[in-house]
């Protein structure tokens, strides 16, 4: 099972620029490495990460095999109103994980 870790403040002042960090467990197999049997291990990566604030996409990252295993990403966002931030990782072999956090803006 995939395991995602989100680091985001629970509360923020209106208009504050907050940092959100997201980490997920995933091998990010490149598809260029031979395994112990000499055959190439098939590619298995996360292709896309996105973050939606109340349904509006505020950040997206298209990944390539050059992203390290257990992809970590950090970005900034303006906290304009309270709501939920929904994170979505999708990739090879129908990989799909969704996670959400609530942020209260005062």
């Amino acid at each position, binding site marked *: 099972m995939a395991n995602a870790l989100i680091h985001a403040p629970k509360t923020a002042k209106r208009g504050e*620029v907050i940092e959100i960090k997201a980490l997920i467990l995933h091998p990010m197999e490149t598809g260029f*490495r031979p395994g*112990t049997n000499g055959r190439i291990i098939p590619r298995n990566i996360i292709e896309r990460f996105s973050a939606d604030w109340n349904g509006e996409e505020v*950040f997206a990252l298209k990944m390539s*095999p*050059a*992203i*390290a295993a257990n992809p970590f990403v950090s*970005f900034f966002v303006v906290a304009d109103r309270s709501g939920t931030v929904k994170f979505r990782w999708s990739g090879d072999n129908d990989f799909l994980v969704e996670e959400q956090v609530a942020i209260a803006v005062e």
Partner: protein
Amino acid sequence: MTTSRRCFLAGAAVALLPITSARATPADMEAAIREVTGGATLREGPVALDIPPLVENGNTVPLTVSVKSPMTAEDHVKAIHVFNEKNPQPHVFNATLGPRNGKAVVSTRIKLADTQQIAAVVETSRGEFWTARAEVIVTIAACLEEVN
């Protein structure tokens, strides 16, 4: 007839060629950059590409791209692209940003297969393209060790 040392070295060099051609080259990186910019001129802009100059383990290398931008609706960073020269593929990531981000800063961790140059290309809402480059020395490359 015995093979002279020179002949042997020439043969060895030819035998080694296929290994290097399996990788992206600096020309591939420039081609990938042109695909993004559409041939627009790249300028050195207010872009900082933070990556350690000397990396011990190429399997996970922290990388931060920060751009000085007001991030308003009229003037903001639309996308940050990162490319490499010598991994099997020139692409590293493409990040999509907008005025909602407030700050054009993106961090992640990447893999590096060799000592090489990394390039960040920033696309702004005004249609400008900025770039920043960094040289990285890698002592243990990614993607080489056997898996269990």
